[in-house]
């Protein structure tokens, strides 16, 4: 008892000393861990409870922590074989974590809640990972060595099916977005002729990207991923076969439906030939033969190329320059 009271006096004395303004690096703030000093000193528990009447069984003293008995070359995978909370008595590292008190350091690992709260990777040390991977190796297969470049993969396996899996905390394992499937294929890898590829582009509409020549089908109407995959393949099959078909009404295709500009039978050709015929009207002044002759001339062919390029590729430095040169040659400027 005497020792117990003397300890309390000591603690009181310390606080008074700092209160007098003595500049000692002793902080007034104490952590919960300090109470363990009193508990181990007196085996009867906190003093105010002892007066209640019922005698608690004497609490066993905690033995030496495991860290004292650990060898330097021990097998750490036996200490932390699976994910577990941080046990300060099992981890021999001088880890400190938490906001430091003023003029102090972060608190030590004994009784540190911050270390217990944060997920630890003590069960995944490099030695443990190597052991796990050694055990998992027999279940893995090799990637075929012939498919080393992306180009080779695209050539032999042109269809790409993308799907996403989701893993998260929560009451349910399922995620409804996991059923969405994207099927990507390059049209160049399908067996399509000229008419079929044009019709396929018209059928596909916005799902086609011209820069990468990729056609994407996003399937999300079915509740299961396998169903969406099957549906996407079915759509691809149907589009392919439909694009090879030629319907009778396709003969009514007008100039406005054409994908590319063609100079023959266009207003540009008519205008140019009329102008050249009128320029030559002073000369021969024939009928039909003149037009064919004019068409065969080199300058007219150059003009045709430049106009076609301008219309198909859009306006740029090179196309407008080419057009200018062609016009100058045709009109003999």
């Amino acid at each position, binding site marked *: 008892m005497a020792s117990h009271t003397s300890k309390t006096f000591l603690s009181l004395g310390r606080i008074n000393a700092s209160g007098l303004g003595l500049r000692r690096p002793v902080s007034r703030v104490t952590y919960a861990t300090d109470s363990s000093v009193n508990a181990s000193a007196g085996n009867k528990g906190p003093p105010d409870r002892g007066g209640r009447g019922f005698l608690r069984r004497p609490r066993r003293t905690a033995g030496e922590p495991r860290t004292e008995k650990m060898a330097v070359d021990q097998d750490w*995978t*036996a200490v932390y*074989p*699976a*994910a577990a909370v941080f046990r300060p008595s099992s981890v021999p590292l001088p880890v400190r974590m938490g906001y430091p008190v003023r003029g102090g350091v972060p608190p030590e690992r004994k009784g540190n809640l911050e270390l217990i709260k*944060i*997920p630890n*990777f003590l069960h*995944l040390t490099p030695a443990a*990972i*190597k*052991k*796990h*991977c*050694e*055990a*998992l190796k*027999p*279940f*893995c*297969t*090799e*990637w*075929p*060595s*012939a*498919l080393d470049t*992306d180009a080779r*993969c695209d050539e*032999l*396996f*042109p*269809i*790409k*099916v*993308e*799907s*996403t*899996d*989701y*893993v*998260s*905390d*929560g*009451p349910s*394992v399922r995620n409804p977005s996991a059923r969405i499937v994207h099927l990507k294929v390059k049209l160049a*890898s*399908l*067996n399509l002729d000229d008419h*079929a590829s044009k019709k396929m582009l018209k059928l596909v509409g916005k799902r086609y990207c011209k820069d990468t020549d990729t056609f994407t089908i996003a399937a999300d109407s079915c509740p299961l991923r396998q169903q969406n995959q099957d549906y996407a*393949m079915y759509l691809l*099959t149907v589009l*392919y*076969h439909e694009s*090879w*078909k*030629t*319907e*009778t*009404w396709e003969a009514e295709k007008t100039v406005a439906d054409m994908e590319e500009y063609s100079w023959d039978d266009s207003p540009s050709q008519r205008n140019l030939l009329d102008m050249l015929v009128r320029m030559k009207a002073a000369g021969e002044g024939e009928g039909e033969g003149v037009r064919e002759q004019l068409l065969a001339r080199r300058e007219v062919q150059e003009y045709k190329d430049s106009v076609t390029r301008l219309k198909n590729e859009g306006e740029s430095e090179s196309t407008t320059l080419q057009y200018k040169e062609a016009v100058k040659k045709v009109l003999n400027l």
Partner: protein
Amino acid sequence: MAAPMAVRRELFSLTRILGGISHSGPRALGACSGHRKCNIIRSHLPLASSTSFHTATVFSSTPSSITVTEEPDALFQTVSLLVKGHDRSVLDSYEVFASMAAKELGITINKVHELPKDMERFTLLKSVHIFKKHRVQYEMRTHYRCIELSHITGCTAQVFLEYVQRNLPEGVAMEVTKTAMEKVPDHILEPMWGDHPIDDKLSQ
């Protein structure tokens, strides 16, 4: 023609590898989870009778039987893991773990990069009643890490993803985007209309 044929033979020989004991593992754990996070036992695939795992004694200690089936293996051109969490240091450690595991299993890592964090902020009234001018602001930070792997077979992807997902720390979510490669199926190789592309019956 010889090169593609050799490739095809090699590809067809890629068979699925199934593990015998690996199926008993999830079943044993299945009793305690509808929840993916099983707090009681969180060990990886219990395989083999290696004495370094003391949890192996909980499950049966027969050596794992690997069965090889004739089903062709899936081929993934890219597998991209996006991990999301509130703590950057946890994601750092996880990235070290996942990249080391990939290296040990012989998987090529294309890129490991960090996407910029997202901060969701909102302002609420500080008091239960009135005091409109006094508010309190909260924010939730989500950090990301993206690991891109390339050229993985279906079996290896299954093994690696299961290993990595079982060791996901608490409070971290993951999205796995797999791009599988497939050949052009036989029914799309040739048009079915043969020599008569004009179909009058259907158009009428």
